[in-house]
């Protein structure tokens, strides 16, 4: 491998970052410390990113199977959740794996191009983003859209700011936001959440079938205007038991449905100390508190959803574990992390409850908090500075 290293004067010199990327992937280089701390912690960015990708695997596996399951539901062939295990798995694989491959191939391609152009080493940030993107979009998203969104997110979300570690908003969410606003029909409504549904002829569907996610469907339960909110809340609870939402037996984006799978990932991230427990905890607390407060109102069915149900449904859990905790876009101070997470969680439920037209508020809330994070830090650091200046003053006086 060393022999293939492009020399500075050879015609391949500008591809050195690419060589370097592959070489350092295979081998931790023999580079040693020069001075200062002569020994270094065993961890590096590759290991960190690798742990996050590992933590995402339960979500991916579950998402693949869930995609297969909901493909069969509209036509009534699905049966119980574990029936037709092989068929569902194969369908899910065929549907989801291409998205993963396209996301990685396109994203890494863009990274390589920028690294060659800027003569940077290839940094590992996209290892995680490339896995996150497929997990937060519907399984039916056309591959060209995935590619397009990935390019948009990597170029405008990250590279224009200087690459890994410099971005202001979360890359994966940037991709999703791009799809959401660019191709709203593919990212919301009642046609996209069950793979293959839009191609299924109407007459093959079972009677009274709706393809919406539970969250989307909640708004469409009808009843007498006066207690619309209360009644649809009950109807909702009957159709989508909270435990189904917890285990993930509901339609939705590929990786976001199963809180159980997400919790496995969360356990890994928290135990290894890679994700911030401060953010995760305060995000969930924020969502729970706002969920409780919302129960006081009656304006639409979302007000009456149980606070706990808010936490297990839709993208909330996934956002809490994998999205809001992204260290680059989150607040950097420990105090700031609590504030950041709490506001993020609260805001996500706010959007969900008070804006009935758009029940999936997690993406918006997190993107908004990404932008706000430096401001939170600014005030937290400012408090530290004030404390230091105060120490000086009594002496001066």
């Amino acid at each position, binding site marked *: 491998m060393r022999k293939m290293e492009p020399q500075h004067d050879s015609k391949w010199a500008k591809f050195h970052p690419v060589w370097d990327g592959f070489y*350092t*992937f*295979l*081998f*931790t*280089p*023999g*580079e*040693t*410390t*020069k*001075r*200062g*701390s*002569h*020994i*270094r*912690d*065993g*961890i*590096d*960015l*590759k*290991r*960190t990113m*690798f*742990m996050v990708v590992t933590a995402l695997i339960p979500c991916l596996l579950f998402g693949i199977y869930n995609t297969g399951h909901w493909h069969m539901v509209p036509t009534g062939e699905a049966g119980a959740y574990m029936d037709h295990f092989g068929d569902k798995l194969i369908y899910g694989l065929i549907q989801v794996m291409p998205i993963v491959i396209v996301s990685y191939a396109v994203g890494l391609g863009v990274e390589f191009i920028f690294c060659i152009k800027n003569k940077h*080493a290839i*940094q*590992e*940030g996209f290892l995680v983003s490339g896995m996150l993107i497929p997990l937060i979009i519907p399984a039916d998203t056309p591959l060209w859209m995935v590619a397009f969104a990935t390019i948009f997110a990597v170029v405008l979300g990250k590279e224009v700011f*200087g*690459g*890994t*570690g*410099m971005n202001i908003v979360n890359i994966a969410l940037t991709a999703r936001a791009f799809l959401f606003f660019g191709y709203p029909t593919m990212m919301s409504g009642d046609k996209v959440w069950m793979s293959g549904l839009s191609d299924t002829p109407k007459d093959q569907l079972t009677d009274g079938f709706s393809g919406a996610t539970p969250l989307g469907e909640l708004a469409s339960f009808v009843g007498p205007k006066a207690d619309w909110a209360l009644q649809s809340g009950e109807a909702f609870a009957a159709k989508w038991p909270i435990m189904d939402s917890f285990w993930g037996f509901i339609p939705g984006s590929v990786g976001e449905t199963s809180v159980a799978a997400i919790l496995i990932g969360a356990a890994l991230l928290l*135990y*290894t*100390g*890679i994700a*911030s427990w*401060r953010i995760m905890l305060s995000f969930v607390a924020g969502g729970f508190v706002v969920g409780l407060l919302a129960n006081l109102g009656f304006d639409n069915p979302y007000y009456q959803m149980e606070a706990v149900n808010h936490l297990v449904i839709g993208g909330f859990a996934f956002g809490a574990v994998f999205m809001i905790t992204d*260290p*680059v876009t*989150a607040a*950097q*101070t*420990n105090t700031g*992390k609590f504030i950041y997470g709490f506001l993020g969680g609260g805001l996500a439920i706010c959007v969900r409850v008070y804006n009935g037209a758009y029940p999936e508020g997690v993406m918006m809330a997190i993107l908004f908090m990404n932008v706000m994070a430096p401001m939170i*830090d600014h005030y937290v*650091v400012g408090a*530290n*500075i004030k*404390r*230091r*200046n105060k*120490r*000086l003053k009594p*002496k001066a006086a």
Partner: protein
Amino acid sequence: MSRTIKLRKGLDIKLIGEADKVKSNAERSSVFAVKPPDFHGLVPKMAVKVGDKVQAGSVIFANKYKEDVKFASPVSGEIAEIVRGEKRRILAVTIKADAENSYADLGGIDTAGASAADIKAKMLASGLWPFIKMRPIDIVANPDDEPKAIFISAFDSAPLAPDYDFVLHGENEAFQAGLNALATLTKGQVHLTMRGTSNPDAVFTGAKGVQQNKISGKHPVGNVGTQIHHIDPVNKGEVVWTVNAQDVAIIGRVLTSGKFDTSKVIAVTGSEVKSPKYIKTQIGTSMADVLTDNVKEGNVRHISGNVLSGEKVELDGFLGYYDSHVTVIPEGDEPKFMLTKGWMGPGIGKFSINRSYFNWLMPNKKYALDTNLNGEVRNFVVTGEMEKVFPFDIYPMHLTKAVMYNDIDLMENLGIYEVAPEDFALCEFVCTSKVNIQETIREGLDVIYEECM
């Protein structure tokens, strides 16, 4: 009024190769050296030429911009070489030593009754001044300053660090004499800070005329910077002085006897040392003599100081002026395949503050860490890891970034006056992005020194 402080943040790195508690005499080096780069920022003005005869205590160079501050030869002999580096910068002055030291007569005084002016003049004239360092900036103290306090740490908490209780045992008189001298130099307190969880030697507990503090916790609890921050922090415009515990004894000894006797006990440690032990030697001794027949075969790195903030020296190099510690660890310049020893491997033999490798299963295991970076230099990505090992009310990452973009106001506001590079050693160790933080902080301090002091 003594203080007791407990710290929660920090990290003890357990390494193989702790020194056995036996003192032996090193073979006397034939060559000694005083290295101007040990005194950061110093521009030396030479007082001797190659071939000159010197005695122990003769001045060999002075600070060009502060000629009061003189640096003396630790041994008697003949100036062998003035080693120069780039731009003719003087890297070392080597002295070919006589078999026996002959001392220049500096005239002994009784430190207990002496006046501040006497002590100061004596210390400056006899080359003792460089033992005093100042915060902020962490350089040799400026004799014109009025320090608000003087801090001495009675223990070293760095990995494999020498045990001062053992090293200074029985040096009560010299140590007390040194404290007396230092006490005259400040209007404030002399703080002697001991480890709260152990029973310090009588040389410390019996010290008079000082404020005795106790502090407990993990490394960097023994760093004098940590202690200053928690006892009497440095604000803008203030100065405190710091002295190493062994150097206090040297100051005391030299002032009372009038002989420039810089013998000290150093710990020879590390996983690549055959029999780690304590050795009695002198400042400026050559590494080869300290390590004679005591280093294992193979590609190793010799460090004067501890593994976190020491200086890399070759085997034909010399012990650093302030160091009482030599560490030898394996070089890690071999590429590591990802699945076995690299980033995807199980990480046996790797130490990490995170639990992403399995080292957390063995909390008491001792490690033989090498000098591999264990990764490549990256932009900052992970946050919060430095705070875990940085027991200051300072935001380490924000301060480091402020230095990187050279914002002097922000550096001041974030507390650069309180820190020295060594305080950031653990931050550098844990940094996932492998940024050289100590070097960065030193650059920041240089800027501050130039612009604000």
